[in-house]
């Protein structure tokens, strides 16, 4: 057969026919790291289930308000604190507003806060970790001392303190929604970069002594190019895992703030805020609190499971 030699095999692949030609590319594709990771990820049954559920939640939050066109702030005292029914599938709150519409809308903000805070944490963490890893001496010592210091700060009280002190001025600059969003994202992200920074530094310390980095250095690659082109792509696995778990942590942090009455204003129904409003009527209208709490729980649980699956897939040697 013509396709038996490797060189002609790749050349013939588009028109390839016959068992040998079809089997060979599949065998080759197995060596691609992405495919290999996907194969391991699929083995984690809970992670696969979580991916499906999270995709459904995401689709519901993104597309749901287009389908379920009940306004989130339509007050109807005649229908207040009603349980689930056909007109209001998840019941109504104390002002007769539709809980489903509010949860669908609020989910956008909760998820956006989680993702944006994760981005902030990853960018800051990668930057500080890379600087600490590449520079020896006192810069590294100071940066790692800073990371340790931030790790020993009580996060939630500090988060509350910063929001307490800066809320009013940010509100006046960016408006009530934008101001709170920017602040919550910046503060949650700014308090969660340490884990990523330590991971990146540890990875850089081990990778930068490898031969291929030496080769890059010998060819005259600048430190920035070494890090961006050669080291970071090899250090990405643990960072992706930590980032995934950061999304869950950020969603919990935002809900906690809202639940304590110090997050988003009442007219923005993030999941935590809905739960905060619902907690005083939990004895007469439990559905209100249960549905909003379940939304937070399900999202966080699925993200955590996906993080676990990604860890198995990208970092197979670690046990935890």
């Amino acid at each position, binding site marked *: 057969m013509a396709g038996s030699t490797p060189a002609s095999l790749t050349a013939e692949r588009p028109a390839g026919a016959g068992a040998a030609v079809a089997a060979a590319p599949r065998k080759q594709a197995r060596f691609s790291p992405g495919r290999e990771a996907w194969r391991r990820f699929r083995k984690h049954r*809970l992670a696969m289930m979580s991916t499906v559920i999270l995709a459904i939640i995401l689709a519901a939050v993104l597309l749901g308000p287009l389908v379920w066109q009940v306004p989130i702030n339509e007050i109807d005292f005649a229908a207040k604190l009603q349980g689930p029914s056909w007109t209001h599938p998840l019941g109504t709150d104390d002002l007769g507003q539709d809980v489903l519409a509010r949860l669908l809308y609020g989910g956008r903000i909760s998820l956006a806060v989680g993702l944006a805070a994760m981005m902030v944490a990853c960018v800051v963490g990668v930057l500080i970790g890379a600087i600490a890893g590449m520079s020896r001496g006192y810069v590294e010592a100071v940066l790692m001392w800073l990371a340790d210091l931030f790790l*020993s700060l009580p996060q939630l*009280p500090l988060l509350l303190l910063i929001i307490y002190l800066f809320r009013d*001025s940010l509100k006046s600059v960016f408006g009530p929604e934008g101001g709170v969003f920017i602040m919550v994202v910046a503060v949650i992200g700014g308090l969660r970069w340490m884990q990523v920074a330590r991971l990146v530094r540890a990875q850089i310390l081990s990778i930068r002594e490898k031969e291929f980095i030496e080769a890059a250095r010998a060819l005259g690659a600048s430190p920035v190019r070494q890090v961006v082109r050669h080291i970071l792509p090899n250090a990405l696995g643990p960072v992706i895992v930590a980032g995934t778990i950061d999304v869950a942590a950020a969603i919990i942090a935002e809900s*906690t703030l809202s639940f304590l009455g*110090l997050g988003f204003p009442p007219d923005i129904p993030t999941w935590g805020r809905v739960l905060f409003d619902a907690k005083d009527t*939990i004895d007469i209208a439990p559905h209100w609190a249960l549905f909003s709490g379940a939304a937070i729980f399900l999202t966080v*649980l699925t993200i955590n499971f996906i993080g*676990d699956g990604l860890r198995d897939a990208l970092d197979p040697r670690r*046990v935890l």
Partner: protein
Amino acid sequence: MSRQYVIRRILLMIPSIFGISVVLFTVLALAPGDPFSELAANPAIPPEVAAALRAKFGLDDPVWTRYYHWLIAMLHGDWGFSFASRINVETLILQRLPTTLVVIGAAQLLAIVVALPVGVLAGTRPYSIFDQIANTLAFVGFSLPTFFTGLLLILVFSVQLDWLPMVYRTDISGAGWQWYWEQFKQSIMPIAVLGLFQGASLVRYVRSAVLDVVRLDYVTTARSKGIGERSVIARHIVRTALIPVVTLVALQMPVIFGGALVTEQIFRVPGIGSLLISAMLSNDTPVVMAVTFVLSCLVVFFNFIADILYGWLDPRISYR
């Protein structure tokens, strides 16, 4: 463990507390709000008096001088005067602190009592049915935010079953056993919420620590000497596996304080966390600053205790 080791750890606490105080004061100094706005807004106080007060308290001094004075006052135990409750901040905090420490201590104890046996069993039988169930439950446990678990427990045990009181009361009547029983009943839910949340993440730490140890040669040696399985686990495996767990428990301390804050808020436990929230809602800056500082110091202190325990469990650490 040498005395030198303890002294070195005590000395290491100083830069940490110093760093935390700098972070807190920077946040306060950067904040746009004026701590004297209460006075400025009060029409009964003429502007000259307000200006004289500002000069007296050094609000117009440069930042460095202000930081120095603030730090000296904090170290002297002179933490200012609460705007809202009209008593000294240190009195207020000392009233509230014991409750919080009892709740956190009991919760931590519950977490360890639950997590240690479960984690060890799961770690010694990896990938068994028990391990998988424990792992899944652990994921559920730390994906459930404390505020939602708290509401769920209230819904089940206070509203539906009416077994436990909904809120924590300080004015329990009765004496002797009656008082202790009531106190116990109202503490169950806050401690359970906090303890199970902590326990869930602890299970995974214990499991992975045990997994690291189980395959080591000295465990095989112990088995081959004919020591019973139970004794091998208790004397040889758990003792070594505990060492990293102690550090992880200490690193979790900031999270525990955050959780305590939420729990106290849900069950109206009169601790330092609910003091922080009520002070924030009533713009009581001296109390907010002092509580945050106390919480940070407590975290540093618990890290110190973990270091000491670490040196005691693993004598090699002391000589490094």
